[in-house]
């Protein structure tokens, strides 16, 4: 079916049982020209496939900005100075999701928030979004879901891809070049540059709306398709330098100014191998290896945050069919070592942890086209060691997913347990942009407890897909609930000049997040796709002021959007003309009690984009972000006296930049065969 118009078409997915786990999604996206967002009807897990076509509908410059046309994910700034965006899924912050590159773990720990800026949109081929904890093969985290992105493969029709982008003071360049060494070997190199060159202060508060920045990322990846094996490996180096805060940075001033600088280098190596083994129907063995090193130096006014992280990850996966392709067994062993040295808030937030795990997963699919019953039952057992703090323990992680498809209806249900280690510092980097003192409830530097958060997630969803007048109509409805046993929280409510950190079990007061979403899409007018969604969320956190009481109480979490309404129209003409209009209504969000208005105002963001594609010149696009010019006018509180007042740049509920115009160019050079 045609390009954009059939967004929602269920493309020919490789069923879980027929491919080596490692390469499963890779084959999925090789189905050519799949359009827009499609909800998987076949996968037992609740998966949304976001294709390149969809990614092109927004300004989209890195992974954190790739979800503007998606109601499941909200993106917001972590603070008003660093320009860092973070995403929220099922009402939980970005680090509660698992990020994978081609199903191999990537960002975590030090890069769990900042890492999204390291993935340029132009490098991305597609994104797979799973809501709720997914397969245990990828680990025991993924509380809110899994975001799996596939970079442009080197086995492709495009010899080269170029992209240039210009926004207000912001410039980006991307180039990808592919070599085909032989029918078996191929390789590509990707380069990305991004600069924020001009000092932009649209709200005249004396602080930069977006930090001056310079990003350079370079990557080289290899692919090998053997007779009975597949391999991928790569190397990536990333460099970021940002300068934020006062617009007077670098100029001589009479009074000290508040500024922020951040410099980080990250190096990544990864390798995946898969072999089909003799005997059995799809018997295979796969290995995943990753090694990451990152160093970060930064300051926020007088506060410094420096860190180095070393991370090694390995996973050995065995897969086989039992009797026939309907029954699949996966089993494996993995380890994840993360050594983080950091200097933060005058205390150390160091950890040196090793997780070793063993897992087994059984899946059943009644029929290859997904009709009838399908299920996945998984169990893993992890042993978590903290070499610094000495805390260690076993974590059994059970997960169950169930799907039943009958004609146009698909029902899914899941029940999962997950745990993760929260990383003080990097996950709360936005909270450093203030003068608050940090109080660590019941904790001293000597008795620092490794914040192991754990939760139970339940999820239910219904998808209805039917051809109406030869065009696919799709509706969905889903409900997810995440209930935390142990959770780390920063409570900003108690006083104006402090934030209380608490980690642990709150005697019966279990923090939770509920997310309900309903939506649909249909090509109502010729070549024009209409999408809508409504999302309700209810997120509760522990009120740290009541922790001393016998029964602590929960309170509404700050800075999340309880009601969100999304509407999108997308036109794609016959002669390569495209038009997109996306509107998102965000209801009022709760702000910290002390020193702020009780709630933020509700606001609507309207984005529009025009594009024209032609064989000679590629694709040219021009867009407007935030057409209604909605802004949070005072994102920085107490900016006049940053060193002795109640300076706070951490409470950001809305856009800092007003209406913006951007333009870009994309060009694909195809192989002449």
């Amino acid at each position, binding site marked *: *079916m045609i390009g954009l118009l059939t967004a929602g078409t269920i493309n020919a997915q490789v069923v879980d049982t027929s491919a080596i786990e490692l390469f499963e999604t890779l084959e999925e996206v090789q189905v050519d020209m799949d359009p827009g967002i499609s909800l998987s009807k076949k996968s037992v897990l609740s998966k949304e496939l976001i294709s390149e076509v969809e990614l092109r509908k927004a300004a989209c410059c890195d992974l954190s900005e790739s979800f503007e046309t998606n109601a499941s994910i909200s993106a917001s700034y972590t603070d008003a100075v660093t320009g860092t965006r973070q995403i929220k899924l099922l009402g939980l912050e970005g680090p509660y999701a698992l990020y994978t590159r081609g199903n191999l773990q990537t960002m975590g720990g030090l890069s769990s928030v900042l890492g999204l800026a390291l993935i340029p949109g132009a490098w991305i081929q597609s994104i797979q979004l799973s809501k709720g904890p997914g397969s245990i093969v990828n680990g025991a985290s993924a509380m809110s879901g899994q975001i799996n992105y596939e970079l442009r493969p080197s086995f492709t*029709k495009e010899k080269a891809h170029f992209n240039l982008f210009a926004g207000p003071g912001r410039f980006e360049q991307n180039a990808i070049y592919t070599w085909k060494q032989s029918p078996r070997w191929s390789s590509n190199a990707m380069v990305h540059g991004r600069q924020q060159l001009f000092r932009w202060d649209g709200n005249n508060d004396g602080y930069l709306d977006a930090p001056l920045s310079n990003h350079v990322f370079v990557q080289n990846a290899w692919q090998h398709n053997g007779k009975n094996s597949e391999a991928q490996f790569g190397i990536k180096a990333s460099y970021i330098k940002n300068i934020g805060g006062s617009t007077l940075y670098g100029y001589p001033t009479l009074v000290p100014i508040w500024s922020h600088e951040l410099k980080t280098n990250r190096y990544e190596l990864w390798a995946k191998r898969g072999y089909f083994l003799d005997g059995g129907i799809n018997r295979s063995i796969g290995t995943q290896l990753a090694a990451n090193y990152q160093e970060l130096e930064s300051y926020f006014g007088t506060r410094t945050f420096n860190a180095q992280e070393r991370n090694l990850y390995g996973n050995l996966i065995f897969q086989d069919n039992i009797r026939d392709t309907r029954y699949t067994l996966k089993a494996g062993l993995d380890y994840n070592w993360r050594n983080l040295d950091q200097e933060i808030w005058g205390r150390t937030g160091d950890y040196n942890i090793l997780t070793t795990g063993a897992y087994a997963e059984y899946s059943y699919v009644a029929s290859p086209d997904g009709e009838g019953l399908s299920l996945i039952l998984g169990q893993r057992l992890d042993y978590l060691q903290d070499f610094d703090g000495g805390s260690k323990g076993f974590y059994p992680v059970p997960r169950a997913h169930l799907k039943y498809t009958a004609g146009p209806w698909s029902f899914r249900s899941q029940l999962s347990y997950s745990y993760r280690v929260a990383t003080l510092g990097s996950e709360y980097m936005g909270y450093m942009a203030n003068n608050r003192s940090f109080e660590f409830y019941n904790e001293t530097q000597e008795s620092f407890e490794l914040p192991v958060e754990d939760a139970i997630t339940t999820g239910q969803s219904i998808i209805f897909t039917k051809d109406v007048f030869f065009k696919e109509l799709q509706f969905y409805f889903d409900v997810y609930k995440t209930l935390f046993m142990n959770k780390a929280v920063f409570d900003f409510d108690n006083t104006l000049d402090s934030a209380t950190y608490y980690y642990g079990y709150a005697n019966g007061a279990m923090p939770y997040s509920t997310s309900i979403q309903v939506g649909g899409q249909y090509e109502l007018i010729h070549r024009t796709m209409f999408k809508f969604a409504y999302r309700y969320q209810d997120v509760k956190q522990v009120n740290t002021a009541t922790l001393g009481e016998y029964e602590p109480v929960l309170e509404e979490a700050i800075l999340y959007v309880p009601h969100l309404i999304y509407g999108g129209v997308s036109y794609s003409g016959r002669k390569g003309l495209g038009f997109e209009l996306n509107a998102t209504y965000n209801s009022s969000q709760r702000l910290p009690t002390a020193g702020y208005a009780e709630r933020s105002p509700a606001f609507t963001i309207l984005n529009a984009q025009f594009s024209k594609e032609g064989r000679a010149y590629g694709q040219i696009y021009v867009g407007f972000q935030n057409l209604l010019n909605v802004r949070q006018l005072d994102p920085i509180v107490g900016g006049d006296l940053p060193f002795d007042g109640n300076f706070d740049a951490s409470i950001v509920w809305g856009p800092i930049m007003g209406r913006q115009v951007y333009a870009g160019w994309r060009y694909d050079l195809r192989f002449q*065969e």
Partner: protein
Amino acid sequence: MALGAQNKFTETTIEVDGLCGMCEERIENAAYLPGVKKADWDRETHQLALAFRNDKVTEEEIIASINEVGHDVKDHPATDEQYANIHGCCKFRDAEQRKAHGLTEEPLCKPGETHEEHPAHGDKRKH
């Protein structure tokens, strides 16, 4: 030719020559004229499944639009000028390209063949 739910809908399939995913996109995009509800080309069988409002668009108009982007429709080949616009890797009349894409049957139209001397294709090909 089958009738749709209402008489104003026509459902039919026509044979269109092409090779790859790029061709598929081009063919379907060309066929998707106002009034067309469905245009789905199968790379294996070369059949383009169509559903359209017969009061708004005719089969001839759809075929003309497909020819315009350079693709041959059974009994309605594209002109050489139209075919010349097709991307190098999609030259479906070329024997080498057909082989590279795993096609064994003859093209609907051979390179250099003019419209006039073009034979009626009829039953030569099986799917």
